[in-house]
């Protein structure tokens, strides 16, 4: 009886080991190199009524060689300051990064007046891949509306 209970205990342990192994050794991939944020149509009107509409998080994480292009889109009918750029209606701003670093941009949309883009190096080692996947999970929980 005891032996059977012990056998059941091994199942979650083994599942965890396999999961961590997969996270560390499976090749990392994303659907697109672009991390896209868009101001939807009607945002200016919503803000005018006093609604607090936050589209860009104050911190954006990118990964070199994997997802290293920030793509901002203004789909509203008026010009909008979006992160570091003033975008005309229907205009996009495509900003590529080639060096892993932390970039600060002036951004009036945030209380701090700044937006940070963290560009991390490509996760080449198993430990780095594990960290990269863990960070994506944490970011998706912290910023559920942000594309990962």
């Amino acid at each position: 009886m005891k032996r059977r209970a012990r056998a059941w205990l091994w199942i979650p342990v083994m599942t965890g080991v396999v999961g961590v192994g997969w996270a560390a050794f499976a090749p990392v991939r994303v659907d697109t190199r672009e991390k896209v944020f868009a101001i939807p149509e009607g945002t200016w009107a919503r803000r005018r009524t006093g609604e607090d509409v936050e589209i860009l998080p104050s911190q954006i994480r990118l990964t070199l060689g994997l997802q290293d292009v920030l793509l901002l889109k203004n789909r509203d009918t008026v010009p909008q300051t979006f992160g570091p750029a003033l975008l005309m209606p229907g205009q996009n701003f495509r900003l590529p990064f080639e060096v892993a670093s932390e970039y600060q941009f002036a951004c009036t949309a945030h209380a701090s007046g700044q937006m940070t883009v963290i560009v991390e190096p490509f996760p080449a080692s198993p430990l780095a891949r594990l960290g990269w996947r863990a960070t994506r999970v944490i970011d998706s929980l912290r910023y559920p509306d942000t594309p990962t």
Partner: protein
Amino acid sequence: MAYDSFSGARMRHWLLAIVASFTGMLAMAAERPALKAGVFEPPAAAPGFSLPASTGGQQALANYREKVVLLGFGFTMCPEVCPTTLAVLAQARKRLGTQADQVQVLYVTVDPERDSAERMRAYLRGFDPTFVGLTGAPDELAIVRAQYGVEAERKNIGNSYSVAHSSSIYLIDRKGMLRAMMPYGRTPDDYVHDVRLLLNE
């Protein structure tokens, strides 16, 4: 025989399709060069202005049509960001060699109280004698900043003050279109790469 001619025709179709798609890809690449700066898509006309210049008199952005304009905003008492950016731009201009004459750096002050045209001339000459500084009335400069989405906020420090400001450089092509924005911290070679692409269009 009939089979052979059919196969030959099909081969020609395939070859034509490959050549056409390759040409299409080249054309697309030619339309949208991969700049290292952040690119505005589609580009809009760069907002125009005419301001008192360090070269004397008024200078309008339109005067520099046919050149690639690198437009920045800052102030002469800036402790770090402006000197770094201007040094990078001066270095980039040197590396452009014979193409340097086709590039114009314009620096608009965010501190018109202290930055007269003369003061800007003396300051910018230390980096590159061809750089042009622009000043003007505070309201006039605020309009130019708003048109480019540039932030500038005065911060009092004891008896003096500093100005926190956007630090990117705007790239305007020879037709006067606002094409891109280079964030602070990029290298002279990044500017050389992008300016050459814009000049060679």
